[in-house]
């Protein structure tokens, strides 16, 4: 009988904090600047420069710690992690080893109806490294330090997960908490959230952990799921053939769907951590924690409860809308601009979801504003456009965030509300279709639909079909 194995997974998640400036200097964290235009002596590691901690980094880290049920370290410090690599100008990364800012937390996840706690070992603050670009056909690399010193938190879980589904549920939970806190936009594909997977296997029932590997370079939930499956199989194959799992760091190649060990020659994992003498201790008082707690925005779980109480929309819709902070923001803002909750929810659940699927757009990347959605809804309410035209206009709102009022006017899409003109057209259609009129008089109600359709066509879609229907019935008595 073959052995049954269990997968044991812990995660190291790096999250880029959404501050305006870097962690230790007043350089901008803005994305996409020309190389090295957001740098200074501190973040390029010039001798004699002095790092000064960004207060907002501490506050965001504490906010994440509180929202993940952690203990906040009242007296925390920074340490130097020494290693040599050209993306690291100081030859050490400022991080936290001995006194990380948060410890011993957990988040609750739900997979297939089963709830489970995933414990958080610690959260620490650190700085990001620069970026290396390898030159083609040359023996040199180019270094851009714009990302050097961008604030990160690293969230280290306990090895509490047992499947790819649990890992994804955990990451999704973290993403939502952090997004709702406004601490980061947490985009895996853009690197503002990065996950390294520590994985080992052991026989079911075994108390001891197997030898684990760490897999890096996972840029999507799909890549994470594939890499976990792949690494589990690889380790089981090794054990089954009597070999040993080597503790190492591996890099995932998502195109080829396999991982390979990162160069381990001379990769002595000896960072010789020691307290950073340039940075003084951070003492976090009870009052400060209270202040951060009190300024915490509404999180998803609270939002779900409130939506259920305030809005008459299905629970399923609430779950979908709140599954992205971006969508929840659009929803609430459109309502505050006067749109009916039910209407807004219908547009988000219907056309928005359809177009997201069609264009492969994630909810976090929606481009249209709540203002333009609210305007569109108003145009329909006022019967200025009908449903068909509205869908057409919304496609433009979705893609380019156009102002629907202006678009409707510019393209002459407004419904003709001049009843005289409408009646005239309807009379013309009735006169031209005596057969249909006869059918209607003989009780064939379906024929009304044909006349409505003909009228709409004649009006180039710019009429309210229910109004047309009403007038036809009135004329035909």
């Amino acid at each position, binding site marked *: 009988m073959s052995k049954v194995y269990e997968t044991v997974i812990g995660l190291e998640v790096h999250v880029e904090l959404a501050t305006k400036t870097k962690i230790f200097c007043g350089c901008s964290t803005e994305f996409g600047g020309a190389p090295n235009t957001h740098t200074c002596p501190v973040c390029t590691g010039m001798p004699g420069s002095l790092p000064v901690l960004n207060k907002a980094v501490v506050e965001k880290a504490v906010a994440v710690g509180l929202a993940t049920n952690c203990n906040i370290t009242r007296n925390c410090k920074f340490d130097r992690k020494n290693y040599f690599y050209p993306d690291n100008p100081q030859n050490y990364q400022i991080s936290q080893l001995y006194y990380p800012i948060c410890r011993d937390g957990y988040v609750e996840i739900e997979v297939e109806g089963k709830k489970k706690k995933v414990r958080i070992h610690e959260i620490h603050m650190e700085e990001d490294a620069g970026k290396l670009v390898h030159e083609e056909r*040359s023996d040199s690399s180019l270094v851009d330090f714009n990302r050097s010193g961008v604030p990160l938190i690293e969230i280290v879980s306990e090895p509490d997960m047992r499947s790819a589904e649990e890992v994804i549920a955990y990451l999704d939970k973290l993403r939502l908490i952090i997004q709702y806190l406004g601490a980061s936009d947490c985009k895996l594909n853009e690197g503002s959230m990065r996950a390294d997977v520590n994985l080992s296997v052991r026989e079911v029932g075994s108390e001891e952990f197997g030898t684990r590997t760490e897999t890096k370079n996972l840029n999507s939930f799909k890549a994470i799921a594939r890499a976990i499956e792949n690494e589990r199989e690889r380790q089981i194959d090794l054990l089954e053939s009597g070999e040993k799992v080597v503790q190492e760091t591996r890099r995932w190649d998502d195109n080829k769907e396999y991982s390979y060990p990162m160069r381990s020659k001379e990769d002595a994992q000896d960072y010789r951590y020691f307290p950073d003498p340039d940075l003084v201790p951070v003492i976090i008082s009870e009052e400060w924690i209270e202040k951060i707690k009190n300024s915490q925005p509404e999180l998803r779980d609270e939002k779900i409860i409130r939506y259920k109480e305030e809005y008459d929309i299905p629970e399923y819709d609430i779950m979908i809308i709140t599954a992205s902070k971006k969508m929840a923001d659009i929803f609430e803002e459109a309502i505050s601009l006067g749109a009916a909750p039910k209407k807004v929810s219908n547009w988000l659940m219907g056309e928005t979801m359809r177009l997201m699927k069609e264009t492969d757009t994630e909810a976090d990347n929606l481009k249209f504003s709540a203002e333009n959605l609210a305007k569109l809804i108003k145009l329909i309410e006022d019967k200025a456009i009908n449903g068909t035209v509205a869908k057409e206009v919304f496609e433009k709102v979705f893609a380019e965030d156009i102002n629907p009022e202006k678009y409707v006017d510019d393209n002459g899409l407004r419904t003709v509300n001049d009843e005289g003109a409408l009646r005239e057209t309807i009379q013309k259609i009735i006169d031209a279709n005596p057969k249909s009129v006869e059918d209607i008089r003989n009780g064939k109600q379906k024929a009304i639909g044909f006349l409505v359709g003909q009228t709409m066509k004649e009006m180039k879609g710019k009429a309210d079909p229910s109004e047309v229907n009403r007038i036809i019935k009135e004329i035909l008595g």
Partner: protein
Amino acid sequence: MVITDETIEYVGILAKLELSGEEKEQAKKDMTNMLEYVGKLNELDTDGVEAMSHAFPISNVFREDEVTNGDDRENLLKNAPDKKDGCYRVPKTFD
């Protein structure tokens, strides 16, 4: 405390330095001297004394989250031994 050949080898790998035999001998001597110098501290009884990282009792030195630095690339790159397209140019490195 004596620095062994293995230690010099290991520290060389960590620091990514290739030392000649002569340099290794010199480094061994220098490092032994340094350790002996600070070794004096081992004579003190430090039981129950909390490790200290700063000589002054200062804490909570912060900056507000406001951009204060502009683009000073040209100036910063002046120190670079080699540069290209606004970047520092280094020997080819892979991770």
